[in-house]
């Protein structure tokens, strides 16, 4: 029996010739990740086991959620991470500023994750690295603590859903529209405990940043991971980032629990209505105008250079609507510099956007744009749960960068083509 991509990576790291769905295995890890919220309790648990970390070069610690620290308590959390990184000589500790940013933007960007690699992270969006043909998944702090000590984790091999992408996406549609459409189709628990494996000729039309967005939100369908095949675009992206890697591809007779098809050419821009990422609706189907007060452009989902490029193109020669605050957050220092070199930052500031240093910020209601009662936000982030960005009576509409930019300009949820 053939294996799919995820099974091949898991088998390789378990030292087995083959694995199948449902099997319990213990795997060696290539990269272990935590942030300023999840690392401190993991460090406390790690200390119960004692000793040194398994490999200081295979751990990434990224204070990105409440940073630059918003108050004394969060400064204390980051200090716990910083002190631990120094004491354990962690190679990949990312201090605010420097060459840092949001964890799931910087790990692929700096070649710390790649094809065929197995990563766990104490953050649910760790599944992002499936975009570069790796197996990666989120865990909690106890799993993380044990991984720091042993370099291993247990897994139940997930069954797989094959998502076949057909055709070419229209220009005003991006990775966010693809993943929100999929979650709308299968539901927020549609892939519970499973793998989402993206395949089909439509994959080739998706840029790497589209793929990062799609893999990033696999968790929003309940999936353990999302994974893309390795192709020319992956190879080009990885040049000068990572040297040694071993891509995986699915066997022709690999087993899938089911297959879902999406015709990319038929997609239109979508938003996910409050309070679930699966409440997807095409913007063109919205009958009554939905006025908004805030737009957030950034996050581990949509804070990469192509996301900013798509938004900047729409903002050129336009102003943010007088009733709207538009907050733009480049996902990393490198993205920030790149956006500056390409003139996007100037475009954003001239349009009236507030441009912030890289941070998770408002996405999970940390800081940098918290909503009060009755406010509505169009956000390129990943969750629109009750109270996620502030008051429990505020509303988040999830969208891609193009819809976010168009909505910021028009002061209501809008399609990119509505901006003249």
């Amino acid at each position, binding site marked *: 029996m053939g294996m799919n991509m995820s099974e091949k990576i898991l088998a390789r790291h378990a030292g087995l010739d083959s694995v199948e769905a449902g099997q319990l295995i213990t795997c060696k890890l290539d990269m272990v990740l935590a942030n300023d919220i999840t690392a401190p309790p993991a460090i406390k648990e790690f200390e119960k086991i004692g000793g040194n970390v398994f490999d200081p070069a295979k751990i990434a610690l990224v204070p990105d959620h409440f940073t630059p620290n918003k108050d004394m308590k969060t400064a204390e959390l980051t200090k716990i991470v910083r002190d631990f990184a120094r004491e354990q000589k962690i190679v990949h500790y990312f201090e605010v500023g420097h060459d840092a940013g949001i964890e799931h933007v910087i790990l692929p960007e700096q070649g710390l994750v790649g094809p065929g690699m197995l990563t766990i992270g104490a953050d649910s969006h760790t599944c992002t690295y499936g975009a570069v043909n790796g197996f990666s998944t989120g865990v909690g702090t106890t799993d993380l603590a044990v991984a720091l000590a042993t370099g291993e984790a247990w897994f139940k091999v997930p069954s797989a859903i094959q998502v076949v992408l057909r055709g070419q996406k229209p220009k005003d549609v991006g990775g966010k529209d693809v993943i929100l459409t999929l979650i709308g189709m299968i539901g927020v628990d549609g892939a519970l405990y499973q793998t989402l494996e993206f395949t089909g000729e439509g994959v080739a039309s998706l840029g790497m940043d589209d793929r990062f967005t799609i893999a990033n939100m696999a968790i929003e369908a309940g999936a353990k991971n999302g994974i893309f095949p390795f192709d020319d675009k992956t190879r080009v992206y990885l040049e000068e980032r990572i040297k040694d890697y071993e891509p995986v591809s699915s066997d022709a007779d690999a087993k899938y629990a089911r297959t879902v098809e999406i015709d990319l050419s038929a997609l239109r821009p979508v938003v996910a209505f409050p309070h679930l990422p699966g409440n997807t609706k095409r913007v063109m189907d919205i009958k009554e105008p939905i006025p908004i007060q805030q737009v957030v452009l950034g996050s581990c989902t949509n804070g990469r250079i192509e996301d900013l490029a798509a938004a900047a193109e729409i903002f050129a020669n336009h102003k943010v609507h007088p009733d709207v605050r538009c907050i733009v957050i480049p996902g990393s220092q490198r993205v920030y510099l790149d956006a500056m070199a390409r003139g996007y930052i100037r475009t954003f500031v001239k349009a009236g956007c507030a441009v912030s240093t890289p941070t998770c910020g408002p996405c999970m*209601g940390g800081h940098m744009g918290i909503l009060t009662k009755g406010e509505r936000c169009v956000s390129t982030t990943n969750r629109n749960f009750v109270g996620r960005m502030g008051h429990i009576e505020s509303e988040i509409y999830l969208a891609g960068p193009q819809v976010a930019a168009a909505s910021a300009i028009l002061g209501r949820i809008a399609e990119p083509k509505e901006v003249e």
Partner: protein
Amino acid sequence: MKAEGKVWRYGDNVDTDVIIPARYLNSFDPKELASHCMVDIDETFAKEVKAGDIMVGGKNFGCGSSREHAPIAIKASGVPVVVAASFARIFYRNGINIGLPLLEIGDDVEKIKANDVLRIDTSEGTIEDLTTGDTFKAHPLPGFVQDIAKAGGLIPYIKAKKK
């Protein structure tokens, strides 16, 4: 472990952002977390929950963020076990890892109502609704995951293995 207590009943897709909102993640002290548990969908829970009370949810309980603060907040509230139709996977792992038993019973969960009194044997996976007389059987934990649960969580399990 055996438990008997009153049901706090919630619906489908209870996410970790409502179990413990991110604005309280500037602490990882279990008591502090418990004092804000469920506040965004149920202000009464943290105030009125009694040790031994049981939390019951619908499908996909614990979806969203990987924050282990969520099962910790529930456990520190005095809730000894959570019953649901299904659990989101990271929450499920976290529950097992910190020694908070999670029982999955599928659609049967719809028969359990708020304020029912349940009697649960987590090692047998049996649930008795003393209010209605219904009994349910939870899906068993697979393989060595059972050993982790029996050890009281992943850290005690790993420490015992090291010895």
